[in-house]
């Protein structure tokens, strides 16, 4: 009888091998592993809330899932030199009344690598807490949707952490895509952030580099606040289009280099307030409602070699006039067809300054509903009427505007000519079409 009971017990251990057992195993395996060992996980669900306290490699397959109990961090990394790769992490703690903010993976140490990881159902995706020189690569974080702010955290949260590399990650639907708080000298390259509140949110973080990132469909593309000496290059800010949205906001942000970025179809391409000494160079700012919204509290920005065209309002200065330069060393900006410019000496610089006057600044300052009209053709009529009544104010003066050196698009012209020829043929042969489609059997 005793033997049978033992047999049943052993049998049940095989039948009811649930994640609890696996979790104990995983934590036990980690506990018993030696420093530097490689733990290969299988295609199954492991229970989370594990703590890694020694340098090792945790490697899954594409179907490996580590699932938390919804009450804490799913994986806590408390030793340096840990590598985690090729797995999914889910169900971190969402409690906002807890002593700490939980994450799918929380890193407290330096020199770790996280690669090829999928995350969902967690407050924060990855949280770097006073963790330096880590690499976060190809991590995909899925949040609850951008309308949810308080109930969820950020995709990648970097707190008091320096010298980290965030590369080729994808974040969708979290509160902020990437949040930097007192974090310096980090590199952020090739990430895609979509449908969040702010794709990128900076607070008190200096000397960080951003290259080749894409920010789309966020309430705000990138909000840089109280942060200095950043480099933003070759990023794309597209369709950050909600009411009062922006591609890039600089608020109390100084000495930043913003070069070669694309600001396309945002409510406001650049929004600059209380910021000084920023260089905005060689950016493409087009088809935004407002290309650049510049508040008078901002001074000494330099705008040069930017292509600013097809915006409803190219640039607007609000709250008074600041001291900003719209050209540098004889090189201004290319305003497309916004200004009729002559370049008789053909040096690529217009012979007269580009001066933009507008009457809309007062409305924009006073009434937020004006943004709903920016796409209306009535805006042009409104501007013309106020021009006649001399109610305008100068928004900017570019002393050295660049003229367009692009050649006309012969491909498009060819297509137009082709279309006209086809139309002429159809009109000429319309009678035949009438007979065919009308089926009335008689020629007209």
């Amino acid at each position, binding site marked *: 009888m005793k033997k049978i009971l033992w047999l049943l017990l052993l049998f049940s251990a095989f039948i009811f091998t649930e994640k609890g057992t696996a979790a104990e195993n995983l934590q036990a395996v980690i506990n018993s592993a030696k420093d530097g060992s490689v733990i290969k996980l299988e295609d199954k669900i492991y229970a989370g809330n594990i703590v890694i306290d020694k340098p090792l490699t945790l490697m899954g397959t594409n179907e490996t899932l580590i699932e938390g109990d919804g009450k804490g961090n799913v994986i806590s990394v408390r030793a340096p030199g840990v590598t985690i790769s090729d797995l999914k992490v889910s169900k971190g703690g969402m409690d906002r009344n807890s002593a700490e903010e939980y994450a799918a993976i929380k890193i407290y140490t330096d020199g770790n690598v996280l690669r090829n990881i999928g995350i969902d159902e967690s407050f924060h995706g990855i949280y770097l807490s006073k963790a330096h020189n880590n690499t976060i690569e190809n991590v995909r974080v899925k949040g609850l949707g951008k309308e949810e702010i308080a109930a969820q955290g950020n995709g990648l949260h970097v707190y008091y952490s320096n010298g980290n590399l965030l590369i080729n990650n994808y974040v969708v639907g979290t509160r902020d895509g990437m949040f930097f708080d007192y974090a310096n000298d980090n590199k952020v390259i090739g990430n895609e952030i979509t449908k969040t509140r702010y794709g990128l949110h900076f607070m008190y973080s200096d000397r960080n580099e951003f290259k080749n990132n894409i920010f*789309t469909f966020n*309430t705000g593309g990138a909000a840089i606040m109280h942060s200095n000496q950043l480099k933003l290059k070759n990023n794309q800010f597209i369709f950050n289009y909600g009411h009062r949205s922006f591609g890039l906001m600089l608020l109390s942000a100084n000495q930043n280099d913003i070069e070669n970025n694309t600001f396309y*179809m945002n409510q406001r391409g650049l929004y600059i307030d209380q910021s000084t000494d920023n260089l905005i160079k060689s950016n493409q700012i087009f088809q935004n409602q407002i290309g650049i919204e510049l508040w008078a509290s901002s001074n000494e920005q330099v705008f040069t070699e930017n292509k600013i065209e097809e915006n409803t309002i190219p640039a607007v200065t609000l709250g008074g006039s600041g001291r900003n330069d719209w050209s540098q060393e004889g090189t201004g900006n290319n305003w497309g067809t916004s200004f009729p410019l002559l370049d008789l000496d053909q040096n690529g610089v217009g012979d007269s300054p580009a001066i933009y006057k507008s009457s809309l600044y007062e409305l924009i300052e006073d009434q937020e*509903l*004006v943004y709903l*009209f920016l796409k*209306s053709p009535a805006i042009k009529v409104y501007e013309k009427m106020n021009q006649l009544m001399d109610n305008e104010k100068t928004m900017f003066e570019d002393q050295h505007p660049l003229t367009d050196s692009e050649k006309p698009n012969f491909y*498009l012209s060819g297509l137009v000519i082709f279309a006209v020829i086809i139309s002429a043929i159809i009109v000429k042969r319309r009678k035949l079409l*009438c007979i065919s489609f*009308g089926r009335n059997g008689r020629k007209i």
Partner: protein
Amino acid sequence: MYFVWKEWKENIRGKGLWLAIGTIILVSALLLVRSTSLSYDQGLYILLINLFDTLIYFIPILYLFMGAFSIFQEKEQKTLVMLLTRQESYWTFLAKKSLGMHLVLIVPVMIWFFLFLVPLKLYFKADIGTYLVFVLSMVALMLVFTQIGALVGSISRSRMQIAGMAVIIWFYFFFLHDFALLSMIQGVNHDNVKLFSIAYFLNPIQAVRLYLETGVGIYSFGHMSRLLKSFMWLQPGAFLGASLMFWVAIAFISSGLLHRKEGFE
């Protein structure tokens, strides 16, 4: 059915429908060519918004004219008098005629838009739901301006009157309506913002635009201020539906009440 068939034959013999479809095809093709360099993920959204922004310059005026001339043709050719003498009242005539016009003027464009989906699918990540919202937006625009065109045709005595009225109506919806609202926008506060909102969405162009931009997911009304929340007291789709019903009903009833049976060249 007879009215639909009659409308179809008349329209394919005329120039209006061909001109409208030709314009829409040409504009769509040109914008597609311009957009082929856009990214695979966002290209569709950018193209649809640009296409809408371009087509609103053509569709309202073209459909106003087509609606108006379609009714006026019945007067010119004396078919209206014949129909009214025999079995129709003006209301039944108008209802059948409107149905015929809507079907004949809208369906070919819808067919083109579904054909247009093929190259879109090749170049971009095409989401069918997004595209349907776009097609629906265009249909709404065509519907409302065709019906207003029918009103113009009903009350006009000559082609000159039609031309004048159509241009004035187009100018009103395109410029004046928003211009009037812009002129009084500084007086908008929490007490009167709902009234302002109604006036704003009474412009079908703005109602359609906001429906399209929110429907395809590029315009977000998240995190609104109190004033904006009061302004958006209905969903954009509901505003569009209400605006559409209002103008179609007003145009239809006014056509019935104010119509003139005779027309001359």
